[in-house]
């Protein structure tokens, strides 16, 4: 250390010129490091998906309510040539719709198979549609008495083994970016614990496949899946399609092995 250099004292207004020049160089270096680091960090990030969710952007939708495999609204344009859309319903925050539908039914009777009008926040991604019932039971705007449809028949069951990750579809399909992996694990656990349907994301030659996970008898098994959320797992069970969504029924004990 060169003691002959001018000595800096903070409470004096004058900064020695030797200090001033070095500090200028230091600040320049820090800005340069900040800029280079920012470019590298942002450029090499994993890309985000195109999934959409606009908080507070409410939409009114009409359709037939199905309760299996989870509450789903079937939206039919009325044109036989256009396929129905099957909108998976989720609750506000990190909750499913079980409690909300039960409250709606207290006032309106059984809604299964009924044509209803809902208001909520649309969530869209990778060909899947969801609706957040943002206003809870107030999300039900109207119940039409014109018809009560019987449930659609599921496709035949086939035995499959899938590898992939248990996700919560609300975050994955648009609310969070990223909505999967370790970084999102705790949130996905809370969502699935709160009743949002657990979905198994796997990949095949056609792209990603999303299957709602149920127990062997078609019951909800969210609590038994929590330890395996956002981890790479392989599951075996019976797969089929019901009300526009793929379903896989599994014995959750296999995950412990």
């Amino acid at each position: 250390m060169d003691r002959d250099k001018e000595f800096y004292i903070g409470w004096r207004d004058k900064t020695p010129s030797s200090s001033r020049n070095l500090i200028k160089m230091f600040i320049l270096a820090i800005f340069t490091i900040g800029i280079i680091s920012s470019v590298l960090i942002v450029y090499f990030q994993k890309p985000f998906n195109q999934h959409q969710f606009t908080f507070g952007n409410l939409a009114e939708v009409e359709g037939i309510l199905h309760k299996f495999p989870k509450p789903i609204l079937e939206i039919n344009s009325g044109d036989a040539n256009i396929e129905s859309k099957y909108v998976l319903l989720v609750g506000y925050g990190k909750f499913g719709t079980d409690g909300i539908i039960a409250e709606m039914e207290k006032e309106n009777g059984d809604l299964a198979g009924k044509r209803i009008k809902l208001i909520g926040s649309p969530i869209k991604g990778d060909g899947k549609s969801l609706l957040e019932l943002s206003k809870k039971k107030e999300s039900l705007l109207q119940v039409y008495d014109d018809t009560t449809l019987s449930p659609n028949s599921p496709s035949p069951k086939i035995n499959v083994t899938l590898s992939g990750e248990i996700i919560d579809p609300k975050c994955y399909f648009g609310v969070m970016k990223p909505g999967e992996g370790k970084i999102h694990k705790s949130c996905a656990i809370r969502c699935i614990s709160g009743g949002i349907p657990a979905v198994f994301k796997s990949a095949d030659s056609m792209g990603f496949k999303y299957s709602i996970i149920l127990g062997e008898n078609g019951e909800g098994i969210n609590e038994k899946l929590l330890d395996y959320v956002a981890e790479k797992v392989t599951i075996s069970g019976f797969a089929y399609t019901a009300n526009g969504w793929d379903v896989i029924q599994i014995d959750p004990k296999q995950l412990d092995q």
Partner: protein
Amino acid sequence: MVIIGNPFFNNNINVLMGINYNAVQWNKNKKTYDIILWVFILFIMAFMMSLQVIFHPTITLETSIIRTTAITAFLLLHIILMIGPLCRLDQRFLPLLYNRRHLGVSMFFLALIHGLFCIIQFHSLGDVSPLVSLFTSNGDYDSFSDFPFQVLGFLALIILFIMAATSHDFWLKNLGPHMWKFLHMMVYFAYILIIVHILTGALQYESNSIYVLLIAVGFVSISSLHLYAGIKANKTDLTIVNSHNKSLHFVCTVEEIQDDCAKTFSYNNEDIAIFKYNDQLSAVSNICKHQMGPLGEGKIIDGCITCPWHGYQYLPENGQSPPPFNEKIKTYQLMLIENQIWVDVIPRPEGTTITPVKILQDGSR
């Protein structure tokens, strides 16, 4: 001793040395420091958010805020940790250290924004309270790759909060310098927690090796600087080789000390600085009462030993801060035999006056 100027009636030093406590004791240097700091913070955040929009247009605002605040705070933490050793290696860096408190508090606020957004985004509006969720949602405490990394970030944030909350001289005075120093040395623990937080969190998702490389460059830079500054400080400390009796030790010759500067050495637990000024010598504790700064790296300014860190001042003959200040440090008896400086390593009580040793023309007493 000749006192040049009148430091006792300098307004800046009055507020600096803790006679009156203000939230911030502004002066020109602090204002300049803060302006540059916040221009840097806002520039880096705006630049990074713009890059996010350019390279990843579908990113959400929340994710952009979470990432930008975290990266900016981590960058600032590196700067904070580098300032100490840089100043030990070259005193021209001292202006960076003078207002480091504001750098630390700003860094804490960025980390707090990151933490709050993460808690709101990932842990709120669920079936348990956000804090319970933070600790219990992911229970894989026995796994490195699956470890609940948020807990580490939360603990680091608590440490940074304690440091920011106690950064004012009011707390330094009330906690005492040793406790205060201990609390603020926890920043190194927080730094390690944050590194593991990133390794077990973001880097379990972002797999590009550039991120590990960037963290490694930061860690190696900080470690090397500390190591180099430590080795250099050890070399400049004198080793006592000769003893006259149990407590009197030879230190160095008069010529080895520059005018208005000091030589430092340690003996057992005594850290001593011997100053040469106005053809006389005085020995005092090398540790400043303010933040335990190295007084021996300071200079005699206006007749006072002036700490290089924040300009705290002491009279060399008695280790007392000039009135109206009341800080006191230990003093030591010196003896000059020909041109050899000998010191009695048994300290006198803080603030004890010891007549300075006169250096005669031929270099002896």
